[in-house]
């Protein structure tokens, strides 16, 4: 560290291999499903300061979502079973690109579908729209052609979706992995090979609670997705493993509630992070993370975020790939 004045560089390009790039002023992104369509938090935080935000998951057709209750608090976490309530890709396009054009923060669209063709159809429609910075492909969806087996649990199925979407648009593509896969690294490698510009993880884990007074599942949908601090150790582990295996940027998420949590993901190998549940309980969190990260980097002489991305990885990072398997850990 020298004495000259400097400010740390928080910028990150999440699609270095894509001519359209996905340049963010900082690595803090509001996660899909937790930030509506970028409008809802306008009265609470300065949305323009975010690195980017991701829209609620959009589907080919409008969806009314699941029956109530849709959320249930759990120890240091929450379950949600919203059921992808959204206006459908056409309803979305009628309303939001227009609104986003007035904002300067990069807006990413999260898409969900039950067939490869539907993913590609949505991507093609989005390709023509202004004010869309990138697409995040949510592969945690049932594949109808495969009897409802989740796309994201299978490397090939995830790669198929990635290829089809890549053929339909030149927009930067982030593939968002499902933690339900038995080998999340294999899925990451497959989608990287299929053309993903970046990989984000983790989506929620499937869980449920039972209302013991009524003797039935609490959520209207029976199962829901578990998020929040409770799942952070699982998310950090998966980011650590995936980052060691792929060359594209990794975006980490799962239970980030404070600067130390952000640093955990970055040191595990994430070039950027997303905040989901944390926004609900602490709306000021994303902006505070940016400020605190700037301050931390200044104090520690870290000029560019790159310098600490993957800092906790062993020197021969790829060797780690099967460490989670070989050392098992889950039967200690």
């Amino acid at each position, binding site marked *: 560290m020298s004495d000259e004045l400097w400010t740390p560089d928080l910028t990150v390009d999440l699609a270095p291999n894509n001519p359209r790039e996905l340049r963010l002023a900082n690595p803090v992104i509001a996660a899909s499903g*937790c930030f509506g369509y970028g409008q809802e938090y306008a*009265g609470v935080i300065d949305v323009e300061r975010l690195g980017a935000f991701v829209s609620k998951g959009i589907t080919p057709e409008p969806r009314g979502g699941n029956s109530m209750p849709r959320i249930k608090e759990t120890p240091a976490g*929450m379950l949600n079973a919203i059921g992808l309530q959204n206006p459908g890709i056409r309803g979305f396009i009628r309303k939001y690109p227009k609104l986003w054009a007035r904002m300067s923060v990069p807006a990413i669209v999260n898409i969900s579908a039950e067939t490869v063709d539907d993913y590609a159809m949505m991507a093609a429609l989005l390709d023509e729209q202004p004010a869309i910075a990138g697409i995040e492909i949510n592969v945690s969806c049932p594949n109808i052609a495969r009897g409802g087996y989740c796309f994201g649990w299978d490397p090939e199925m995830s790669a198929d979706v990635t290829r089809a979407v890549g053929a339909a648009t030149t927009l930067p593509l982030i593939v968002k992995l499902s933690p339900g896969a038995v080998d999340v690294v294999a899925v990451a490698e497959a989608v990287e090979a299929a053309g993903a510009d970046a990989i984000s993880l983790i989506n929620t884990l499937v869980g449920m609670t039972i209302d013991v007074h009524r003797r039935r599942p609490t959520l209207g949908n029976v199962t829901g997705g578990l998020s929040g601090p409770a799942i952070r150790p699982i998310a950090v582990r998966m980011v650590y493993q995936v980052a060691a295996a792929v060359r594209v940027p990794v975006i980490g998420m799962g239970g980030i509630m404070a600067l130390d949590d952000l640093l955990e993901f970055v040191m595990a190998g994430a070039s950027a992070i997303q905040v989901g549940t944390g926004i609900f309980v602490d*709306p000021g969190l994303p902006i505070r993370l940016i400020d605190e990260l700037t301050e931390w980097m200044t104090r520690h002489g870290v000029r560019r975020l790159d310098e600490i991305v993957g800092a906790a990885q062993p020197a021969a990072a790829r060797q780690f790939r099967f460490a989670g398997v070989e050392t098992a850990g889950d039967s200690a």
Partner: protein
Amino acid sequence: MSQRQLGGDLTVAGTSAPVRSREFVGEVVGIEPIMGDAAVLSVDVPMTVVHGLRSGRFFEITCRDEVAFDPLLRRPYSVYRIDAERGRLLFLVRPFGRGSAWLSRRRPGDRLALLGPLGNTYDIGPTSQNVLLIAGGVGVAPMVMLADEAIGRGLNVTFLMGATTVPGLLPATELPDRVEYVVATDDGSKGYHGFVTDLAADYVRWADQIFACGPESMYLELRTAIGPHRIGRRPTVQVSMEREMACGLGACLGCVVETRHGMVASCIQGPVFDLDEIIW
């Protein structure tokens, strides 16, 4: 009810300054027992927060130690009363589960993280003269603030209150003098013996509007009880719906109520709904 939506409140009445953030820290200045095991929590907050606040709106309160993440989610609490001069919010909290139990244990000097005001409000129509307020249990909170508002506008107010037993009733002293206060208890230990909604029928022809806050079952009883006496949708009935909430800002769609206009977020297009708009 679109005029009652959140967007309209981004500028504080009486000033032209936009509210930069509805997230703030308040300080507990008092906690007094009321209605059996419940408590009224007085919280000092920035003046701008209290300014122009109306009944029905609520705040999302973090109900845990700063360093702990359990219970994780904020809890919504209606405003029970305001002290505009001191910049003070009063909440009525009944210890029920983990969040409310934590809140009930606060002491003066403790700090609270609040988000709000959130949601829409009860709306007294410009031509209303007679209003009927119906409260069930801890649902009395926004009704007390609404009674203050109605009396302030010179209206005739009848306030029906139901509770399981006597200790659960709101003390009459909490209401403005001019309010007609009628109570019911499930066990008949005071007032009418039975559901408070049974009393409502008598007031249907008199009331220009009905406002209610209580459990969902009370609204269903109410609809049945007043149905035969209403003329079309007159008088209108506004009820506050209770939903578990995550964001409080319309972002998560976890708190929806099914209405004739679809699944709407009760944290922004509610919590107050027209009884007849809800699909039960």
